[in-house]
Each structure stands twice: as structure tokens, then as C-alpha cells.
């Protein structure tokens, strides 16, 4: 194993592998990535695989638009098929408040060059013919939104990073830091010490908080369990990601044909629990059958859980911290890391390689939580 790194990345999910790839692409040498389990074993590999531009703040819409543009060209760039299918996101509204949110979104998106369309219930049914339109007041659809196979994105990034010289060590855990004069000098792992010349990057997802604490840095992130399931595989009949705004239900089909979907539980408390429960099965199946009644005849094959690494404003933390001068954060994605990471990892790589990213990431700085005035994202699903 390498005993020295210029940039040491902790975490082998989409952030860690995406950053390793983007750094290597910019010619940065001495990149070492540590993953304590296997690639994508955290939230990256447990998520639903959605990527959308339909958000409620101008900043997030613009950011995701960039990410989607990257995802469109990534298979060729990485020489790896990430199974990205752009068949849209369909948001459903069941009351006036949700309807107004969707209408505001359409106005915002149009202004930013994102072609979200407002639809009535019948038009929504043209996109998903099995949709039950009862109780649906309106919908929005954006055909550029889509779903991908999360593991493939992680694997594609990792393979390309390795081809360009990055070193990736699996089943290797970062356990502590040697800090002198406010700088991390080395990282202690279960396989020995690695000296760090430039940066250490905390890409540990929901475990970022614990990791940061070992360096004396307190992150405001909290882990929340979110459950998800797949059914038996069927011919494609739910093309877009369907989102019910009334309860946070989301579902689509994977490229293998399984219906994949989840639902948020507002009563879920912060924890590292990853067990699957009965309550989710009840909440999900009731909500899913209401939207697409034929689902009652379809068999659920497998359920699991993952952790949202949630910040107070549901936006990620990107960039340096005040306490330790060479410790970068790329975490706190609050459930939408897979779709932000393509652009976020590019910007962070630029910060490392050039000292300044091509677009400011100041608004993702951890300092915002001390300065107040936070603008929370309202369209967090699941």
C-alpha cells in the first residue's frame, strides 16, 4: 500500500470516486482513496438512482442541469455504461399548495432554460398510462431528468480514475489523524499510516460527521434511515420517476425492469439504523398502489435501507473548514448526492488542482450555518 499521498480521499462512494476521477483527469498525482467496505457500499449504492433538474431554488436547478449534462457524456468519457435513461421525472400534486409549488417551479425552470412542462392529470396519464388520476390536480414533467444504475456510476469513475493513476484501496478504514499546527500530517488506517502532503477529503457520506470529529471538526450533519425496495422485473411500463408530493413517494423502473421505489417516514428519527422494517412496506405499498393500482398484483422482491446525510438546509457541505487547514468536505448531500456529485466533484477537483473552481462553491461552505440566513431546499423526496 502507498505510504504517502498528495490527496487522500476517504470514502468510495460517488463523491470519493468521482473526485478521484476528476482530479486524475486534471493531472493531479498522488491520489489515494480509502474505502472501508466495498465501492458504493454506503448511500451511493443504496439509493434509487434518480437525477433530476426539477428543484425549487435557482441554485439547485442550475447545479443539477450541469450534472445532467455531465451524466449525458459520462459513459463515453469513462468508457463505461452507467445505464442512464432519460425518461423524465413526473411530479404529482394533490392539493393547492403542491400545485402552486409546481407552477412556481415551471416558471423558475423556464427562466433558467430547463424545459419543465405543467400537465393536467390526463396529460400525466399519457406519460404513465397505468396512472390513477383520481385526486391528482396537476403535474410537472421534465424529459431530461432520468435514472441510472448507481453502482455503475461508482464503478465507472473508479475504473477511469485507476487508469489515470489513482490508487484505490478497498476494505481499508481511516481511523484517525495526526494533526500538527492545524494541519493533517497523516491518516491512520487499519493497514498503517499514510502521510499526506496536501489535502485530506472527507467523502464518507453519513459517516462524515464521525470522521470529522476525529479531526476536531464538528459537522451539523445528521444521519437518517430511508428505506427502499424493488419488485420482480417486468417489461418497462413506468418510464419516468413518478413522485407524489403529498407523501414523498417516488418510483420508477430500473433498466432491468424492477420497479424501484421508496417513501419518506416523517416519524423517522436520526440514527445509523440500516435494518428493514414492516412500517415501510405498509407506507410504500399503500402509497404506490394509490398512484398505480396495478402494482397490487406485482411482487416485492427485496427491501433495504440507506442513510441520508442530512444538513439543516438540505444542501451539501463542500470545501474547506476553519479548524484544520487541509481538510476538505464533500458530504451532507441530504439524499441527493448521486445527482449532485458529477458536478460537485468536478468543482472540488478544480479547487484542489487550480486553487479556485470554475464556479464558486462558497454557498456550500460550512460557514453558512454560523452566519444564519439559510435557504432550505423544499423538494427533497423520500
Amino acid at each position, binding site marked *: 500500500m502507498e505510504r504517502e499521498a498528495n490527496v487522500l480521499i476517504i470514502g468510495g462512494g460517488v463523491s470519493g470516486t468521482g473526485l478521484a476521477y476528476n482530479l486524475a483527469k486534471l493531472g493531479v498525482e498522488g491520489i489515494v482513496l480509502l474505502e472501508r*467496505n*466495498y*465501492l*458504493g*457500499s454506503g448511500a451511493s*449504492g443504496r439509493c434509487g438512482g434518480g437525477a433530476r433538474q426539477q428543484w425549487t431554488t435557482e441554485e439547485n436547478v442550475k447545479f443539477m442541469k450541469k450534472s445532467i449534462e455531465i451524466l449525458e457524456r459520462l459513459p463515453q468519457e469513462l468508457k463505461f455504461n452507467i445505464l442512464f435513461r432519460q425518461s423524465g421525472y413526473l411530479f404529482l400534486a394533490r392539493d393547492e399548495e403542491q400545485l402552486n409549488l409546481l407552477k412556481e417551479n415551471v416558471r423558475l425552470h423556464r427562466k433558467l432554460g430547463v424545459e419543465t412542462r405543467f400537465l393536467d392529470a390526463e396529460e400525466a396519464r399519457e406519460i404513465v398510462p397505468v396512472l390513477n388520476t383520481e385526486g391528482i390536480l396537476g403535474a410537472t414533467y421534465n424529459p431530461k431528468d432520468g435514472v441510472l444504475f448507481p*453502482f455503475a456510476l461508482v*464503478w465507472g469513475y473508479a475504473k477511469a480514475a485507476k487508469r489515470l493513476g489513482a490508487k484505490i484501496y*478497498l*476494505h481499508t478504514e481511516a481511523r484517525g489523524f495526526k494533526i500538527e499546527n492545524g494541519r493533517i500530517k497523516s491518516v491512520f488506517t487499519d493497514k498503517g499510516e499514510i502521510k499526506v502532503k496536501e489535502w485530506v477529503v472527507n467523502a464518507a457520506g453519513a459517516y462524515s460527521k464521525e470522521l470529522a470529529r476525529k479531526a476536531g471538526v464538528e459537522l451539523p450533519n445528521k444521519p437518517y434511515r430511508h428505506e427502499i425496495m424493488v*419488485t*420482480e*422485473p417486468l417489461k418497462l411500463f413506468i418510464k419516468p420517476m413518478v413522485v407524489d408530493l403529498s407523501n414523498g413517494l417516488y418510483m420508477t423502473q430500473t433498466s*432491468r425492469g424492477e420497479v424501484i421505489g421508496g417513501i419518506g417516514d416523517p416519524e423517522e428519527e436520526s440514527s445509523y439504523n440500516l435494518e*428493514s422494517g*414492516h*412500517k415501510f*412496506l*405498509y*407506507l*410504500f*405499498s*399503500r402509497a*404506490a*398502489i394509490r398512484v398505480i393500482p396495478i*402494482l*397490487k*398484483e*406485482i*411482487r*416485492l*422482491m*427485496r*427491501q*433495504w435501507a440507506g442513510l441520508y446525510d442530512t444538513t439543516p438546509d438540505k444542501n451539501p457541505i463542500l470545501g474547506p473548514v476553519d479548524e484544520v487547514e487541509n481538510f476538505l468536505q464533500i458530504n451532507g448531500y441530504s439524499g441527493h448526492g448521486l445527482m449532485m456529485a458529477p458536478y460537485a466533484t468536478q468543482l472540488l477537483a478544480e479547487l484542489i488542482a487550480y486553487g479556485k473552481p470554475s464556479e464558486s462553491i462558497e454557498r456550500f461552505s460550512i460557514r453558512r450555518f454560523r452566519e444564519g440566513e439559510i435557504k432550505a431546499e423544499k423538494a427533497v423526496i423520500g
Partner: protein
Amino acid sequence: MRFKNRIFVCLCEDVTLEDVLKAIEDGNDDIESLKRATGVGTGICQGKYCLNHLARILAERTGKSLNEVGLPKARPPTKPVKLGVFAKLEG
């Protein structure tokens, strides 16, 4: 193994011995990664007919014992169940 492209490890997902060997060579040398890279165990049998084969092949290739290789984490339900059944559960 002359006919490894015709030996099926996983009948639900049509995965052959050749597919599995390639995935191991490609660096998927732990059982969880190998399951995801090949799809073995993710079909409607949920691994009941195939995961022991997968573990044995991985053990042979890596020189580890079956115990060290282990099996992927089992996900509920034990067998596929209609969503309509779960919708009738009490919350």
C-alpha cells in the same frame, strides 16, 4: 473449464460461470461486490439457488475459505410477496 460460457450460475438472471470469472478478474473479489457486478442472487429466487455456487467459485478463485468469503446480507422478504398484501398490513 471448456464450456464455462454455457454453465449457468444464476438461472433467474442468466449469469454464466464465464461472467462470474470475468467479474472476479475485474476486481470484484468480495461477495457483496460480486453479487452486484454480476446480478447473481438478485433475481426472483433471491439467491436461494445460486449464492452458494457464487461463494464457492469466489473461494476457489481467491484461495479463501467459504467461511471467509461468507454470503451477501439477506434482504427481506424471504420470498417475493405481492404489494397488495403489504398494503393491508396495519401501519
